[in-house]
């Protein structure tokens, strides 16, 4: 495999135009056309496009090494197991944690459900004795989320609260879209047992001020669960430095295949939590009455896992590591500023959460006055621009902003300034297409 960038410098400078071009060459899909226009893919937050190395790693596995892992003694089984465990090492190194702190799941959604269910199971007295009992929730205990969570980091907690009698509370957002940190300081209290928050909002792109929230949770003795779906692809992610107990993301957001999610959990925590799904590959001894479980991560990975997907994710991680996450973050910072500056010149367009003081990734969700998001997105699709329309699995946040849907533009490491300029131009054409002049209400 050729290097991604010929002379990868060790700076944190944004990628040059030439370097972005070299990166783009590695994503085969970017050369296709949509509706007679070059594809402008601005839906990376929904799922990222895949570089050639990911496509090849997955297919090479099926061509050369396919076998079940952890379940056989033949040569292929050994090779497949080694590749799968190598993938775990790659993910662990990427996050700066130990390999047995990495659990592979189907996606971030399953990872969050795993944690919520494991806590629920501990709450009915199952699990490894005193260590698990420490996590038991009941009436009087509180779980805290924020008003800007993706449904995947909200509904599992609603259900956990319902099962255990604990109370679910949320940190509200200000009108400008930022989290109300004063409210957070009173909501997070000694009753708080879990703080489950997103690292980067998939609607506003804002980076959550963890430096404020995590210490509050620590002081309260609460577990901190971080939804890193929208940060892992765009910022260096170091769960230990962030001092969180759990961090989850989906491989498909990080240029890897769908069907694979990552759960990082602090070793002591994972060893104490009861399993979520039960079956083969997770046990030591089974009798007709009961079973004993392997330590983490195996205890959380029953069944035949998503092997090729894990191998594909490892290839994606090596790819972004070659470019360097620091440089990706710097490049996308410039892109994000340009996107917001461009959108601010378009009349009658509102960017959700634009007024919040937090730094943000290159993502903006907009509302075009008088035009439903679905119609607005159609105008972009006509010129080959892929953007997401809808509530982006964040209905409460959209309700908070007084809208049901928005149009989201989200960049990746292959996005160019010219693409964002085209998108802004296309956004400016939406109201005129629907016959609305400047300032006119529909």
């Amino acid at each position, binding site marked *: 495999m050729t290097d991604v960038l010929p002379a990868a410098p060790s700076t944190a400078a944004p990628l040059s135009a030439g370097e972005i071009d070299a990166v783009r060459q590695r994503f085969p899909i970017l050369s296709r056309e949509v509706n007679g226009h070059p594809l402008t893919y601005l839906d990376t937050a929904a799922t990222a496009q895949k570089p050639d190395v990911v496509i090849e790693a997955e297919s090479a596995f099926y061509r050369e090494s396919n076998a079940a892992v952890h379940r056989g003694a033949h040569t292929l089984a050994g090779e497949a197991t080694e590749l799968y465990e190598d993938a775990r090492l790659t993910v662990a190194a990427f996050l700066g944690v130990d390999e047995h702190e990495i659990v592979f799941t189907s996606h971030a959604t399953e990872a969050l459900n795993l944690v919520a269910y494991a806590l629920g199971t501990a709450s009915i007295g199952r699990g490894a004795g005193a260590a698990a009992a420490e996590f038991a929730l009941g009436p009087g205990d509180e779980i805290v989320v924020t008003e800007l969570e993706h449904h995947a980091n909200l509904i599992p907690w609603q259900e956990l609260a319902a099962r255990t009698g604990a109370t679910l509370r949320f940190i509200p957002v200000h009108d400008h879209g930022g989290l109300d940190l004063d409210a957070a300081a009173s909501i997070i209290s000694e009753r708080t047992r879990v703080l489950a928050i997103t690292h980067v909002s998939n609607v506003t792109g804002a980076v959550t001020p963890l430096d404020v929230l995590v210490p509050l949770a620590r002081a309260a003795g609460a577990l901190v669960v971080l939804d890193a779906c929208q940060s892992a692809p765009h910022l260096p992610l170091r769960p230990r430095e962030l001092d969180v107990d759990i961090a989850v993301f989906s491989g498909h957001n990080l240029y890897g295949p769908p069907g694979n999610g990552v759960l990082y959990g602090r070793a002591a925590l994972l060893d104490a939590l009861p399993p979520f799904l039960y079956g083969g590959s997770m046990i030591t001894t089974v009798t007709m009455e009961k079973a004993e479980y392997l330590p983490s991560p195996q205890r959380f990975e029953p069944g035949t896992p998503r092997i090729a997907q894990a191998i594909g994710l490892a290839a994606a991680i090596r790819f972004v590591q070659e470019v360097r996450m620091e440089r990706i973050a710097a490049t996308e910072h410039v892109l994000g500023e340009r996107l917001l500056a461009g959108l601010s010149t378009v009349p009658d367009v509102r960017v959700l959460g634009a007024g919040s003081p937090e730094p943000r990734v290159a993502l903006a969700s907009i509302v075009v006055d008088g035009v439903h*998001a679905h119609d607005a997105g159609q105008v972009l699709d*006509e010129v080959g621009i892929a953007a997401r*329309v*809808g509530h982006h699995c964040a209905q409460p946040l959209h309700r908070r902003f007084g809208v*049901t*849907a928005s149009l989201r533009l989200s960049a990746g490491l292959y996005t160019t300034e010219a693409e964002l300029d085209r998108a802004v131009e296309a956004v400016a054409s939406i109201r005129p*297409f*629907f016959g609305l002049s400047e300032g006119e209400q529909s």
Partner: protein
Amino acid sequence: MSGLEQLYQQIILDHSKHPHGVGLEAGDETSHQRNPVCGDEITLALRWDATGERVTGIAWEGSGCSISQASASLLSTLAKESTDDGWSWTPDEFTALIHEFREALRSRGTIPLDEETFGDAAALSGVSKFVARVKCAMLAWVAAEDLLQRRA
């Protein structure tokens, strides 16, 4: 005409801006349909003649994209125009019409809506090339179908 202009014909834009048939009454038997992808919502009621055997009108309320709102408005206009012409639908006729509408919209541009049958609503033919939008256009029609099935 570009694909976009085929989708958003002037008739559709007019109906979405100035929808017809809006306004439900207390006590109406309604069907509420949602498109969870984009939050389109339609609540629709059928108006029956004195014998209760023929549909003479359609009333609705809703919010959402221009295609979903225009489609509800066009359906209500179609019902009104046939009633004004002295003709109204039996449940079977209306059900057949909904089936024909659905078949055309799902045809990926191969079956146009017949202008004789559908009047101005035939402008919705363009939607059938936009697979992601078929659901928007179907919403009001599915609500009507739901009410007819409840009666059957």
